[in-house]
């Protein structure tokens, strides 16, 4: 009630907040990041459309890296553990996370999945996000780097249609390049041009899991970005 005159009016009080709505998620993500960095593990959030070739990228990575890189993966999907089974068969320690109807992974799901890994045994942890070119970009998971897998079959202007994810990307893996001879309407220079209009520091590796194109460049990029493990006192 109005305190000034006793008229019976209620008081409307504006409270300035200015807080991130996803602050709780960001706080769990910071916790994840701290654990991963402390263990010297490079954590990559691998995003892209369904069918962009994310799982195939990881299979090719494991084949090429062999024992040079101990790889773990959190495989996010709405349903099935098919991707996790493929990754395990490729020698990757993989943990499936089914999100049900949720279109993205969040930091808490990743946090719980992290408990299934012995981080000291890993060099690289890839979070294979739910196949979706919109929602996963919204949630920080605690990754060090964002990588977007974009298949040449998706067309030249896909980055222009989905700018948010590319604006946050550190690297684009342009996948399925072995199919280019069959795609007369897809010009690589047009794809690069589209990426340069939505990604401030465009870094693109042309990649084919089938013929091995770009795998060495990708491995070099991963090695160059590995953190130095904190010295335990």
């Amino acid at each position, binding site marked *: *009630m109005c305190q000034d005159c006793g008229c019976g009016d*209620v*008081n*409307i*009080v*504006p*409270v*300035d*907040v*200015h*807080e*991130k*709505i*996803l*602050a*709780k*998620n960001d706080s769990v993500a910071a916790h994840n990041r701290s654990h991963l960095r402390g263990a010297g593990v490079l954590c990559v959030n691998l995003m892209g459309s369904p069918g962009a070739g994310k799982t195939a990228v990881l299979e090719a990575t494991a084949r090429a890296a062999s024992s040079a890189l101990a790889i773990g993966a959190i495989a996010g999907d709405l349903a099935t553990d098919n991707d996790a089974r493929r990754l395990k068969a490729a020698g990757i320690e993989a943990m499936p996370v089914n999100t049900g109807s*949720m*279109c*993205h992974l*969040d930091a808490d799901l990743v946090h719980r999945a992290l408990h299934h890994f012995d981080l000291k045994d890993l060099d690289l942890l890839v979070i294979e996000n739910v196949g979706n070119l*919109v*929602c996963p*970009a*919204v*949630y920080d998971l605690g990754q060090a780097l964002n990588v977007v897998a974009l298949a040449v079959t998706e067309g030249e202007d896909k980055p222009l249609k989905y*700018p*948010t*994810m590319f*604006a946050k990307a550190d690297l684009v893996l342009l996948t399925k390049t072995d199919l280019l001879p069959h795609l007369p309407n897809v010009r690589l220079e047009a794809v690069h*041009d589209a990426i*340069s*209009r*939505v*990604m*401030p*520091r465009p870094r693109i590796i042309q990649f084919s899991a089938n013929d091995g194109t770009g795998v060495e460049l990708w491995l070099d990029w991963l090695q160059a970005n590995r953190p130095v493990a904190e010295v335990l006192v």
Partner: protein
Amino acid sequence: MHEYSVIQSLVDSVEAQVAQHPGAAVKRLRVSIGELSGVDTTLLASAYEVFRGGTICEGALLEIVPVRARWTCKNCGREIPKGEVLRCQPCDAEAKLAGGDEIILDQVELEVQ
């Protein structure tokens, strides 16, 4: 559609604010949503209408302030228009996002008895 998850987090944030003002009713919320935040303002408004029933926000209007994406040169600060290559040609410097990725609860209006 992650807008439902965002609304869930929004309601949690509002609950935390109201906890500091016992007995207050929430009448209005104002949020800022950036063009490059990944959140669709129309879907967010729909999700809020579906979700607010039975929560502390049941009687509260949601005002959504859209914020356009602004890319500027890291060096000279010149704005780089939407659709252009995100590089300042005169400076040969990359662009940075100067605004447009926010998902922020700006203000809560409370009715205090």
